[in-house]
């Protein structure tokens, strides 16, 4: 303290030592660098997908399938894959959204601090971490091998639903927690039964938030590939029945075209990647806009 003290007597304000200032600056530049490092791959991926994808993304690509074409042929399209993806993801949402929302409602409105609610909360968290390939293997063992069904879009949707459910539960939970309690109490005070309160007061209040969460969850499962490889298989033709036979899908389309040595196939892979990214970004953007709309209301 004596050295510092002497220094203090000379001037009222001590200098911050060069070492400390250096450390501060160094960390600051490292932190900025970390951000830049993260942005580089994002820009690179998006740039490659857009530039390479634009080369083939046209009306033909969206409206034709690969039926009867070999991978070295020019042309062809991903229509069968787009149809498949939309159907599979649609089915997934039909299964996962009601289950997810109901579970969320249970956890917030009914579960309280009960043992069951705590167990479910824990496993919802754990379930978010299940690798998609494991979900795929499970449906393979259960639906295809044990129950004897064949490859179908629906089998893929089952696996995707497992991946989507926890996200929906989380989103519902978060949103329900934001609904002010006064609203519930006001409704009970009017003699409205609990389930009607939840259905007609609580859920509508949280609706935009839940929809936002669901859209993000849909965007998330839309790009899943691994379970589809095991469960939906692949076809070059349009199969508009998701309950029977192999179906196309954008991710598996990319998988097979990208693994093909022919440049025509690789072009198609990039175009399909662009299509997939566009759909996902639209969903993300929509969700974000919706979330922004909601904000003033909740305040």
């Amino acid at each position: 303290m004596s050295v510092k003290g002497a220094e203090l007597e000379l001037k009222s304000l001590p200098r911050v030592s060069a070492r400390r200032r250096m450390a501060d600056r160094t960390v600051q530049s490292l932190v900025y660098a970390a951000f830049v490092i993260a942005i580089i791959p994002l820009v690179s991926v998006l740039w490659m997908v857009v530039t390479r994808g634009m080369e083939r993304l046209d009306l033909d690509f969206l409206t034709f399938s690969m039926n009867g074409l070999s991978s070295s042929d020019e042309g062809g399209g991903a229509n069968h894959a787009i149809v498949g993806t939309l159907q599979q993801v649609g089915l997934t949402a039909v299964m996962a959204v009601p289950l997810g929302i109901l579970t969320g409602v249970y956890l917030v409105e009914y579960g309280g601090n009960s043992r069951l609610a705590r167990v479910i909360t824990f496993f919802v968290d754990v379930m978010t971490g299940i690798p998609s390939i494991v979900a795929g293997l499970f449906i393979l063992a259960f639906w295809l091998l044990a129950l004897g069904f064949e490859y179908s879009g629906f089998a893929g949707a089952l696996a995707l639903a497992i991946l989507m459910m926890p996200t929906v539960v989380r989103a519902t939970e978060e949103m329900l927690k934001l609904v002010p309690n006064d609203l519930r109490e006001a409704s009970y005070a009017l003699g409205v039964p609990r389930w009607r309160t939840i259905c007609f007061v609580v859920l509508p209040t949280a609706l935009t938030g839940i929809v936002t969460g669901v859209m993000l969850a849909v965007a998330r499962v839309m790009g899943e590939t691994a379970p589809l490889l095991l469960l939906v298989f692949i076809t070059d033709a349009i199969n508009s029945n998701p309950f029977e036979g192999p179906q196309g899908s954008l991710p598996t389309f990319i998988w097979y075209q990208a693994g093909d040595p022919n440049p025509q196939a690789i072009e198609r892979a990039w175009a399909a990647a662009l299509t997939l990214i566009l759909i996902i970004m639209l969903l993300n953007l929509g969700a974000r806009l919706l979330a922004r709309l909601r904000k003033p209301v909740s305040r």
Partner: protein
Amino acid sequence: MAKRIEISGLHAYYGAVHAIEDISMTVEPRSVTAFIGPSGCGKSTFLRTLNRMHEVIPGARVEGKVMLDDEDLYGSDVDPVAVRRVVGMVFQRPNPFPTMSIYDNVAAGLKLNGVRRKSQLDEIVERSLKGANLWNEVKDRLSRPGAGLSGGQQQRLCIARAIAVQPQVLLMDEPCSALDPISTLAIEDLIAELKSQYTIVIVTHNMQQAARVSDRTAFFNIAGTGKPGKLIEIDDTSKIFTNPSEKATEDYITGRFG
């Protein structure tokens, strides 16, 4: 060690909101200056401009001069870090570092300033805790977490932490408002002891407290909601509480408003 502070033409803003307007005053060394006034009159904001803590809040800025003896704290080449090193602060709610022991809390500021020798640290920690009238209560459990102490003890720990680096000014932002009467008394006694060494500025809501602990008192007021806070007058505490020059001060002191 204590220094005189001279403030002139000071304005503070939160974004577009003008929080305090054109304040000029002198804070005398080795004395206690109390800031009183109704809620929202900007006394805490003003206090935080004296160690450049105001600008920590996003969008907040300050105009004007704060001279610590002959140096402007808002000079262009002044590092706020250096300012805070010499102008210590105690907050409304006790805020010891929850992950640190009692000892480490007191030593935190010293370590920043390069004091590394164990014996020196031990000595200053003991001196600071004694200075904060806390030594006898905690000397046997220095390695226990600071968060385990009672509210009043935690606040004295925070005072010990602030005086460990031997600042020249000690700012206290309603240091007793979260404490019970006995702890409050302990802190007030402590303030009376500390003023022999430090320039102390204390914001308080409690007029009895201002009358008890301070030598000089500044009264702040606002013209209405949304208007900036202003300094109405500053004078010897005895004068402010018996015979203030301004009508507004008298109204406030006698409880006619606020």
